[in-house]
C-alpha cells in the first residue's frame, strides 16, 4: 500500500518534467515573438540605428552666382559659419560660458533650445542629428568660438556661404535668401531645418537652378560622437552639385541711374529690349540696399522695411497697378484702326474736350478737328472718346455693346494687359481690363459706350503695371509683337523657357502700328514729349497723366528708341508726379540716353542731379542706402 502510494507520487513528480520543459518553451517562444515584433514589425529601430551610427555630413553646394547682362558680378557667395548642436551629446556644457563666447543671453539660449526641440517649429528634429543653433556667424564672430569648441561637446561648426552683393541696386529683382520655414520643409523634402531658400525675386524664382544639389558624406560615429571613418570608404557619398550661374538681362549701370533718378519718388521704371523681351532695368522706388537682407540682421531689417509706410519691399514695377492714362491711347488707336472704326484720316472734333449728351471729358487747347497722328502727338482725349463711342455704338459690326466690349477686351489682352505677363519674378500682378460681364454686374446690364468712355484714355477701371506699359512700348517698337519680358538672359547649361523666346503677336497689323509710331514720333518732335527729343537718335514717346482719385495725378511716360531700330522701350511711372512731362518724360529721356550712348552728357548729368534731388516723399534713413 505504502509503495503504491510512493510509486504514484513518483509518477506525479515525473510529470513535472513537462512543467519545466513547458516553462522553457514558453520563455523561448515569448522571446521569439518579441524578436519578431522588434525586428520585423517596426521600422523605427532601423531609422534610429542609422541616425545613431551614421553621421550624415551634409556638403552644401555653392549657390549660383548672378551677373548682369554685361558680365558684371552682382551676387556672389561669402563664407559664413553656422553653429550646429546635437541634443543627445550636448550634456554638461557650461552654458554661461557658451553664451559669453557667442555674445548671446542665457534667455536667448534657452529659447533657441526650446525652439529646436519643438517638433512643430522644427519638423525634422532628431536628438541624434545636428540641428541649427545659430546661423551665419562672420569669421570674426566665430573665431573665439572655434578656439573653445572642445569645451562644448555636441556643438559643431558647419561652413556655409551667404549671399553678398557687389552693388546696392536691384534689390527687388535680385531678392534674397533666408532660412527655410516649416512650410517649405513640408512642401519640398529637399530642405532640412536651417537650410537656406530664395525668399524673393530671382533668388526665389530660380531657386532650383541656383541652389544646386546638396551632397552627403556618410561618416560612422560611435556612441561618444567620435568619427570612426567613412562608411564603406565613401561608396555611398554624394558630392554636392554647385548651383547654376545666372546672367541677368539687367544693365546694372542703367539700373543704378534709374534708382538714382527715382530717389524720393514713388513709382517704377521698366526698360525692355524690344527684340528679345529682356528687361534692361527694373526700378521700384523707394528701394533698399540688398545687403540689408544678409546675415543675422535680416530679420530685423525685414521688419523695419515691412513697417515703412512707403512700402519699400513692394516691387512697384510688377506689383503696382496704376491707371495707364494717355499712354493707353496707343492701344485704342490700334484697336480702332484694326477694327475699321477709323482710318488714319478720320477726323474727330475737340472743343476743349469730348462733349456729348451732357457728358464732358476735358481736354487741353489744340487745333481741332484733327486726324489720328496729331491726336497722339497732342494727346487729345476727345479723339479717343469719339473712337470708343463709335466702336461701342456700332451695331452693324457688333450686335450688342457687350460684343463690342468683348472685342475691345480681346485687343487689350493681346497687347499684354489684363493678365500677368509671366515675367520670371514672383508676385507679378495682372492689372485690370474690364470685360462685359464686369459692367453688366456694375451697371445691372444698363450701360453703353458713354458709360465706360474713360477706359479709352486709360482711366476708369483700367489698371496696368509699369511692366505692362513698358511691354506696350516694346510691342509698338516691334510693330506688333512682343516676347514675354524676363530678367534672366541666360542660365548656365540650361535653355531658357520657350516662353521667353517666343514672339506673341497682337491682334493689330504691322501697318497700323506705323501710324502709332508716327504719332509717338510727332509727340517727341512737336507734342507732349518734346523734352525727350535727342539729336543722336530718333525717340518715340507718349506721355501719360493719370487722374488719381486719392491725390495728385500720376506722371507716366512710355517710349522707345531709336524709332527704326529699337533698342530700348521704357516706361516711367511716378506716383503723384502731376504731368507726364514733369517727371516721366525727362527721366525716360535720361534713361534712354544712358543706355543708347553708354553714359550721360554733362548737361544731362546736371539734369539728372536736379531730378535726383526733387523729392515727392521724405527720404528717411531706413533703406540702408546711406551706407554706401
Amino acid at each position, binding site marked *: 500500500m505504502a509503495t503504491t502510494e510512493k510509486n504514484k507520487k513518483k509518477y506525479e513528480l*515525473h510529470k513535472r*518534467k513537462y512543467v*519545466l*520543459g513547458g*516553462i522553457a518553451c514558453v520563455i523561448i517562444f515569448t*522571446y521569439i515573438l*518579441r*524578436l519578431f515584433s522588434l*525586428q520585423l514589425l517596426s521600422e523605427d529601430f532601423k531609422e534610429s540605428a542609422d541616425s545613431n551610427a551614421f553621421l550624415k555630413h551634409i556638403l552644401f553646394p555653392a549657390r549660383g552666382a548672378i551677373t548682369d547682362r554685361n558680365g558684371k558680378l552682382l551676387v556672389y557667395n561669402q563664407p559664413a559659419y553656422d553653429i550646429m548642436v546635437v541634443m543627445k551629446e550636448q550634456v554638461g556644457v557650461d552654458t554661461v560660458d557658451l553664451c559669453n563666447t557667442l555674445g548671446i543671453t542665457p534667455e536667448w539660449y534657452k529659447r533657441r533650445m526650446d525652439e529646436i526641440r519643438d517638433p512643430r517649429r522644427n519638423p525634422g528634429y532628431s536628438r541624434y542629428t545636428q540641428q541649427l543653433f545659430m546661423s551665419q556667424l562672420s569669421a570674426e564672430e566665430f573665431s573665439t568660438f572655434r578656439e573653445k569648441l572642445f569645451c562644448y561637446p555636441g556643438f559643431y561648426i558647419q561652413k556655409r556661404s551667404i549671399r553678398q552683393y557687389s552693388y546696392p541696386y536691384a534689390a527687388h529683382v535680385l531678392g534674397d535668401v533666408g532660412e527655410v520655414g516649416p512650410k517649405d520643409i513640408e512642401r519640398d523634402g529637399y530642405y532640412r531645418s536651417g537650410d537656406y531658400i530664395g525668399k524673393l525675386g530671382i533668388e526665389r524664382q530660380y531657386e532650383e537652378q541656383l541652389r544646386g544639389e546638396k551632397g552627403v558624406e556618410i561618416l560612422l560615429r560611435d556612441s561618444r560622437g567620435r568619427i570612426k571613418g567613412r562608411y564603406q570608404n565613401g561608396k555611398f557619398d554624394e558630392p554636392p552639385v554647385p548651383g547654376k550661374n545666372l546672367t541677368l538681362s539687367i544693365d546694372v549701370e542703367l539700373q543704378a541711374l534709374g534708382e538714382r533718378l527715382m530717389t524720393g519718388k514713388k513709382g517704377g521704371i521698366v526698360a525692355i529690349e524690344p527684340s528679345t523681351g529682356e528687361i534692361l532695368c527694373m526700378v521700384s522706388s523707394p528701394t533698399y540696399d540688398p545687403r540689408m537682407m544678409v546675415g543675422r540682421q535680416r530679420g530685423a531689417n525685414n521688419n523695419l522695411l515691412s513697417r515703412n509706410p512707403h512700402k519699400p519691399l513692394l516691387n512697384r514695377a510688377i506689383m503696382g497697378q496704376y491707371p495707364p492714362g494717355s499712354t493707353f491711347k496707343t492701344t485704342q488707336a490700334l484697336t480702332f484702326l484694326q477694327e475699321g472704326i477709323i482710318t488714319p484720316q478720320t477726323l474727330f472734333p475737340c472743343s476743349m474736350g469730348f462733349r456729348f449728351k451732357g457728358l464732358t471729358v476735358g481736354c487741353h487747347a489744340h487745333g481741332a478737328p484733327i486726324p489720328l497722328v496729331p491726336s497722339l502727338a497732342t494727346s487729345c482725349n476727345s479723339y479717343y472718346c469719339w473712337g470708343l463711342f463709335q466702336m461701342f455704338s456700332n451695331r452693324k459690326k457688333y450686335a450688342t455693346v457687350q460684343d463690342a466690349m468683348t472685342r475691345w477686351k480681346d485687343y487689350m489682352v493681346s497687347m499684354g494687359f489684363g493678365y500677368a505677363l509671366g515675367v520670371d519674378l514672383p508676385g507679378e500682378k495682372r492689372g485690370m481690363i474690364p470685360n462685359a460681364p464686369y459692367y453688366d454686374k456694375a451697371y445691372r446690364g444698363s450701360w453703353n459706350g458713354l458709360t465706360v468712355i474713360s477706359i479709352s484714355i486709360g482711366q476708369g477701371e483700367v489698371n496696368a503695371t509699369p511692366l505692362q506699359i513698358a511691354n506696350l512700348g516694346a510691342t509698338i517698337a516691334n510693330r506688333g509683337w512682343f516676347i514675354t519680358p524676363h530678367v534672366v538672359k541666360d542660365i548656365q547649361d540650361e535653355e531658357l523657357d520657350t516662353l521667353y523666346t517666343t514672339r506673341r503677336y497682337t491682334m493689330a497689323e504691322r501697318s497700323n502700328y506705323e501710324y502709332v509710331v508716327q504719332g509717338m514720333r510727332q509727340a517727341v518732335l512737336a507734342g507732349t514729349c518734346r523734352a525727350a527729343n535727342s539729336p543722336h537718335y530718333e525717340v518715340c514717346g507718349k506721355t501719360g497723366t493719370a487722374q488719381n482719385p486719392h491725390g495728385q495725378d500720376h506722371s507716366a511716360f512710355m517710349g522707345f528708341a531709336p524709332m527704326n531700330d529699337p533698342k530700348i522701350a521704357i516706361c516711367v511711372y511716378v506716383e503723384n508726379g502731376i504731368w507726364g512731362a514733369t517727371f516721366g518724360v525727362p527721366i525716360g529721356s535720361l534713361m534712354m540716353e544712358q543706355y543708347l550712348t553708354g553714359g550721360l552728357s554733362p548737361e544731362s548729368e546736371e539734369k539728372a542731379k536736379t531730378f535726383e534731388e526733387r523729392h515727392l516723399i521724405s527720404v528717411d534713413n531706413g533703406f540702408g542706402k546711406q551706407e554706401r
Partner: protein
Amino acid sequence: MASASKRDKEQSIIRNLDWFTLFIFVVLVAMGWMSVCGASYDFDQGTQLLDFSSRSGMQMVWILTSLVLGSIILCVDDRLVESLSYIIYIGFIVLLFVTPMLAHDIKGSLSWIKIGSFSLQPAEFAKFATALCVAKVISSFNFDLSRWRDLIISAILVVLPMGLIIMQKETGSALVYLAFFLMFYREGMIGSILFAGAAAVFYFVVGVRFADAPLWDIPQISMGEFLVLAGIHLFSAGMMWVYTSLRKPFLQVLLFGMSAYVLAVLYAKYLIPVNTCWVQWIVLAVMVGYLFYLSVREQLLSYALIALFAIGSTGFFYSVNYVLSDVLQPHQQTRIRVLLGLEDDPKGAGYNVIQAKIAIGSGGLHGKGFLNGTQTKLKYVPEQDTDFIFCTVGEEQGFVGSALVLAIFLVFILRLIHLAERQPLRFGRVYGYCVMSVFLFHVFINVGMVLGLTPVIGIPLPFFSYGGSSLWGFTILLFVFLRIDAARNRMRH
C-alpha cells in the same frame, strides 16, 4: 583483467557519450565566437580576428582550452567526481569567502582573482560545485524535498554561496542560484512554493519597475499597481482552475473581475481620469468574500486557501512598496532600482535597453551580415561582447539568426531534461536538472534583459558572452553531466 575493464570503459564512453548534446555545444560555441568577433571588430583598424591581443582572438583561446578541459573531464571517472562533491563544495565556499579579500576592484566588483596574467571569477565555477553538492545531498537515502527539514537543508546549501557572491557585489551572479529551485520542484518540493515565489517576483518586479509609468496615458493610474492587482486576480482564478473542480465559480470570478477592470479603465480614459485601483480593491474584496463563501458551501479548504493567497499577495505588494519607499535608506533603494534596470546607466533611464532594442530592431529579417553591424561595433550598446552579446546576433544575423539561436538553446535545454530523466541514479538526475536550470535561468534573464522584458541583471549568455571564466564554468558544468550520463549503463554490466 584491469586492462580489459579499462578498454571497456573507454569504449563505453565513446559509445555512451551523448554526441547530440556535444554537437549543440560545439554549434553554440562557434556561433558565440562569431558574435564576439562581430562585437569587438573595429571598423577603423579592421582587426585580425585571430590576433590574440583582440577579444575575438582571446575568445578562441578560451574556446580551445575549454575543449581540452572538457576532454579531460570526460576521461575522469564520474564516481571520483561524485565522491569528491563535498570537498569541492567546501573548497569553493572557502574560495568564495576569501575572494573579496584577494580581489582587485574591477568596476565595483570584488569577484576576480588574479592568477599570473589571468583573472578568474570563482563565482562562475561555484555553480558547478553547488550543483554537485546539492545532488549528492538530495540523492542520499530517504531524502525527501517535500519535507520542510530536507528542503531547508538543500536551500541552505544554495543560499550559502549566494550570500557570499552578493558580498562580492555580484548580485546578478548570485541570483542565478535561484535556478536551483526549479530542480527542487522536480525533486518533490511543493509546487505552491515555486508558484508563490514566482508570483512574489512578479509583484515585486512589475510593481516597482512600472510604479511611475502611467497606464494607457492616464496619469492617475500607475501601471505597476494596476498590473499587480490584476495579476493577483488572474492568479487566484488560475488557482481555482487548477485546485478546484467547479468551473462555474471560476468563470464568474474571471469574467466579472476582468470586465470590471476594463470598464473602470475605459471610464478613466474617456470620461473622468481617476485612479481605478479602488475599483480593483472592491473587486478583489468581493472575490475574497465569495471564495470564503464557496469554501463553507462546498466544504473545501482550497477556496479559503486561495482567498488567503489573494489577501497575502495584496499585503505583500503594498508592504514591499512601503518598505521600498519608507523603510530602506536611499542608497539601498537605488541598489534595488539599479537591479531592476531603472537606474543603471549614466545617460538616463533605459539607455542600455533602448540601445539594445535599436541594435536588435535594426537587424531586420536577415540582419546586416557578419561584421557589418553598426550599433554594436560603434559601442552604442553597453557591454556589447559580454552581457549584451545577443544584440550582435540580432543586428548581424537578423530575426532568422537570433530566432535560430533561441531555438537551439531550447533544444539544448529540452535535451538536458531528457538526459536528466534517463539517469538511473538520483544523483545524476538532480545534477542534470541543476545544469538545465542554470542554463535556462541564464538564457531567460540575459536574452530577456536585452529584449527589454526582464530586469537588467548582468549575467552572461552561455557560450556567447566573452570571457574565460564563464565559458570554462559552463563547460565544466555541462561536461561533468555528460560524463555522468555516459556512465548511465554501468549498472547493467
